[in-house]
């Protein structure tokens, strides 16, 4: 039998208050009804209670101190604890779902098994593979006309990506089944490929139309004539009308972005830019002696300094 002073963790000359306080602290920790199923706590509580029984009574404590009784003699006959009932069927009386309810409700089952079944479900349900994201950079003309590009993936696989004609910068192509592998026989994910289009030196894109600054010579502008115009689909011959000033916009119908999907082919708009090049002596001579019938000021519409 453990020494009751040691059991309570107090000195032999502890006051009655010290003993009471020590017992309360230990009872809070080890009370068996607060520690159901914990045999150690139960044993500890028995020892502590017995020690308290002995030492909290000054008369008994004196007898023990003088050696007239030993620690064991004071152990109280065990009383049946609340937990002896609470855990059994009788405990339903104070259960949350009321005294009458026996058996498990659906919620009870869900509470205890929900997580198990859910985990199970998750593991067994087909898991579609992840979509993987890639990006692919392409020339302007390949994007307008369409092309097939080979993309090397980080895992070493290669994908032949068919870029449809009319693909715009930032457009995302979806290649079905080329993404991450699916689990449990479910479909693979897709590869999502964002297309980046490199700007062209001459062409620019405006929806389905293509725009182009087209240099012409002075005589082509003034006299007109046949010229060759580059288009995404290859050079096209056309005739410039006489007196086509710089800034004149010529339209080549159907020579923009080719028809794709449900979109009709766009137009090509060529804006004329008069390019003099290096003037020769004859032109200089002509201009020196040139007397314009109606002198023109192309800057008249501009306000000075603005």
């Amino acid at each position: 039998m453990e020494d009751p002073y040691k059991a309570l963790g107090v000195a032999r000359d502890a006051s009655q208050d010290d003993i009471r306080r020590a017992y309360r602290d230990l009872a809070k920790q080890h009370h068996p009804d607060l520690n159901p199923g914990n045999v150690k706590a139960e044993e500890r509580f028995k020892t502590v209670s017995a020690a308290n029984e002995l030492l909290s009574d000054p008369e008994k404590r004196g007898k023990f101190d003088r050696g007239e009784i030993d620690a064991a003699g004071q152990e109280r006959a065990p009383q049946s604890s609340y937990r002896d009932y609470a855990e059994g069927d009788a405990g339903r009386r104070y259960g949350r779902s009321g005294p009458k309810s026996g058996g498990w409700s659906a919620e009870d089952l869900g509470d205890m098994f929900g997580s198990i079944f859910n985990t199970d479900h998750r593991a067994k349900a087909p898991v579609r593979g992840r979509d993987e994201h890639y990006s692919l950079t392409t020339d302007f003309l390949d994007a307008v006309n369409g092309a097939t590009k080979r993309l090397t993936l980080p895992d070493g696989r290669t994908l032949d990506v068919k870029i449809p004609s009319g693909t715009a910068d930032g457009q995302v192509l979806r290649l079905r089944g080329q993404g991450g592998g699916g689990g449990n026989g479910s479909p693979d994910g897709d590869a999502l490929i964002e297309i980046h289009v490199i700007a062209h030196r001459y062409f620019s894109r405006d929806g389905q139309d293509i725009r182009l600054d087209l240099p012409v010579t002075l005589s082509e502008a003034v006299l007109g004539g046949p010229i060759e115009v580059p288009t995404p689909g290859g050079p096209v011959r056309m005739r410039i009308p006489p007196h086509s000033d710089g800034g004149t916009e010529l339209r080549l119908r159907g020579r923009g972005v080719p028809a794709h999907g449900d979109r009709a082919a766009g137009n090509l708009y060529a804006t004329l830019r008069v390019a003099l090049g290096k003037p020769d002596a004859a032109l200089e001579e002509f201009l020196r002696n040139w007397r314009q019938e109606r002198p023109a000021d192309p800057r008249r519409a501009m306000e000075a300094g603005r």
Partner: protein
Amino acid sequence: MISIEVLVTQISGLQRQDLERWISNQWVRPDGRAGAYAFREIDVARVRLIRELRDEMQVNEEALPIVLSLLDQLYDQRRRMRELGDALRRAAPDEVRRTLARHLADQTGIE
């Protein structure tokens, strides 16, 4: 089944008026009605527990309902666990029980 008069003499330090307050607070729920209560063993044990909580562990009556509610939930869960254990013992083949035990022993607290 014992009456309130007998109960009060059985539990040292228990005042009848305290017990009647606990009953009206629904902390103890004996059979019968006021003036003719009948306490089962579990009711007696619960009264003893409440008295110990209050007098020896100094859980005051303001805090007692919280403590009792948590205890009731704890015992509900333990009863469920016991019932689950019983059901497994009756219904689950040895192999399943061994597998379950192995899985539970492997639990590390993560997933």
